[in-house]
C-alpha cells in the first residue's frame, strides 16, 4: 500500500515538474529578452558614464573662460574709464580757456565802449567801430560753447554711470561659475555612483550659494527704483525708531 502511495506522490511531483518546465519554456524568451535588454543597456550606461566624465572634465575650462570674460570686460571698462578721464580733463581745459576768453571779452567790451566815446564826434570812425563790433561779438559763439561743453560733460558722466553694468554682470557671471562648479561636483559624484551601481539624482535645487559669497546671485542691472524705495522706507523706519528711542530715553 505504501508503495502505491509513493508512486502516486511521485507522479504528482512529476506533474508539478512538468508544469514548472512548461512555465520555464514560456519564461525562457522573457528571460532571453531581459538578458538582451541588459546587454544593450550596459554599453548605453557606459556611454552615459563616459559622456558625463567628458562633460565634467570640460567644466573647469568653461569656468576659466567665464572668468576670462570678466577679466576682459573689467580691463575694457578700465580703458573706457581712462578715456573718459582724458575727455573730462580735456573738457576742463577747454572750459578754463573759454572762461578766460569770456573774462577777456568783458575787458574788451569796456575798452570798446571807451573807444566809442572817444570817436563820438568822428562819424567815419564810429561807423568802423560799429562794423567791427558786429563781426567781433565772440560772446555769441562762446555762450553756446559753454552749454555744449556742459552737455558733453553730462553725457560723459552718464557713460561712467552706465559702466556699473560691468560690476553687475561680473557678479552674474561669478554666480553662473559657482553654479557650474556645483554641477561639476554633482556630476563627479554621479560618475562615482555609476561605478558602484548606486545612481543618485542630480538636484539643482540643492546647489547653495554661501551667504558671504563675493558675488550676488540675484544681481540685476535695472533702472527701476523699486528696490531703492524699499531700502529708503526701511532706513526711514529705522531712523524714526531711533529718534523715538532717544525721546523715550530723555523722558524716562
Amino acid at each position, binding site marked *: 500500500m505504501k508503495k502505491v502511495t509513493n508512486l502516486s506522490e511521485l507522479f504528482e511531483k512529476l506533474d508539478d515538474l512538468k508544469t514548472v518546465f512548461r512555465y520555464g519554456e514560456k519564461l525562457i524568451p522573457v528571460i532571453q529578452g531581459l538578458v538582451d535588454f541588459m546587454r544593450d543597456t550596459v554599453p548605453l550606461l557606459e556611454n552615459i558614464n563616459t559622456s558625463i566624465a567628458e562633460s565634467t572634465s570640460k567644466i573647469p575650462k568653461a569656468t576659466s573662460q567665464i572668468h576670462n570674460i570678466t577679466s576682459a570686460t573689467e580691463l575694457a571698462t578700465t580703458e573706457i*574709464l581712462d578715456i573718459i578721464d582724458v575727455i573730462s580733463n580735456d573738457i576742463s581745459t577747454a572750459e578754463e580757456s573759454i572762461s578766460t576768453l569770456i573774462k577777456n571779452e568783458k575787458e574788451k567790451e569796456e575798452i570798446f565802449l571807451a573807444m566809442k566815446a572817444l570817436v563820438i564826434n568822428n562819424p567815419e570812425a564810429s561807423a568802423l567801430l560799429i562794423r567791427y563790433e558786429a563781426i567781433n561779438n565772440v560772446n555769441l559763439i562762446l555762450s553756446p560753447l559753454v552749454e555744449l561743453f556742459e552737455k558733453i560733460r553730462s553725457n560723459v558722466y552718464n557713460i561712467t554711470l552706465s559702466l*556699473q553694468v560691468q*560690476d553687475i554682470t561680473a557678479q552674474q557671471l561669478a554666480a553662473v561659475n559657482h553654479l557650474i562648479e556645483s554641477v561639476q561636483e554633482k556630476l563627479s559624484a554621479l560618475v562615482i555612483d555609476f561605478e558602484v551601481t548606486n545612481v543618485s539624482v542630480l538636484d539643482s535645487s540643492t546647489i547653495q550659494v554661501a551667504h558671504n559669497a563675493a558675488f550676488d546671485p540675484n544681481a*540685476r542691472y535695472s533702472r527701476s527704483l523699486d528696490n531703492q524705495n524699499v531700502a529708503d522706507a526701511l532706513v526711514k523706519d529705522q531712523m524714526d525708531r531711533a529718534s523715538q528711542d532717544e525721546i523715550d530715553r530723555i523722558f524716562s
Partner: protein
Amino acid sequence: MELRFLIVDDSMTMRRIVINSLRNLGYANFVEAGDGKEALDKLALDSAINFIITDWNMPIVSGLELIKAIRSDPKIAHIPVLMVTTRGIKEDIIEALKAKVNNYIVKPFTPHILKEKIEQILAIAS
C-alpha cells in the same frame, strides 16, 4: 570739516565710478580698499577717514562683516557707513540695518541718490 572717504569695493570699476561721482559732487579726498580686511587695515592706519562707502559682496571680509567690525571697535564705531550694493531684497537691507549701516543704496546708483544719502547721513551726524 573736510570729508575723507574710504571707498571699499572689490570691483576697481565701481571704485572709480564712485570716486568720479564724489568728485562731481565736489569731494576730493579718497582712500580705496579692495575688500573688508584691507578697509580695516586702512582704518587702523588712517585716523582722518571720516566716511565709509562700502559694497556688500567682497572676498575675505564682506561689507556686512566690515560694518559689524567697525561698530564693535570703539575707536571707529562712530564713522558713518553707506552701503552701495546690488543686494536689493528686503531681508538683506534689514540685515545691513541691524548691523548699523547708516544708509543703503541699491546699484546701479544715480548721482542724485548718492548725493541725497551722503547729505542725509551728514545731517543726522551734525
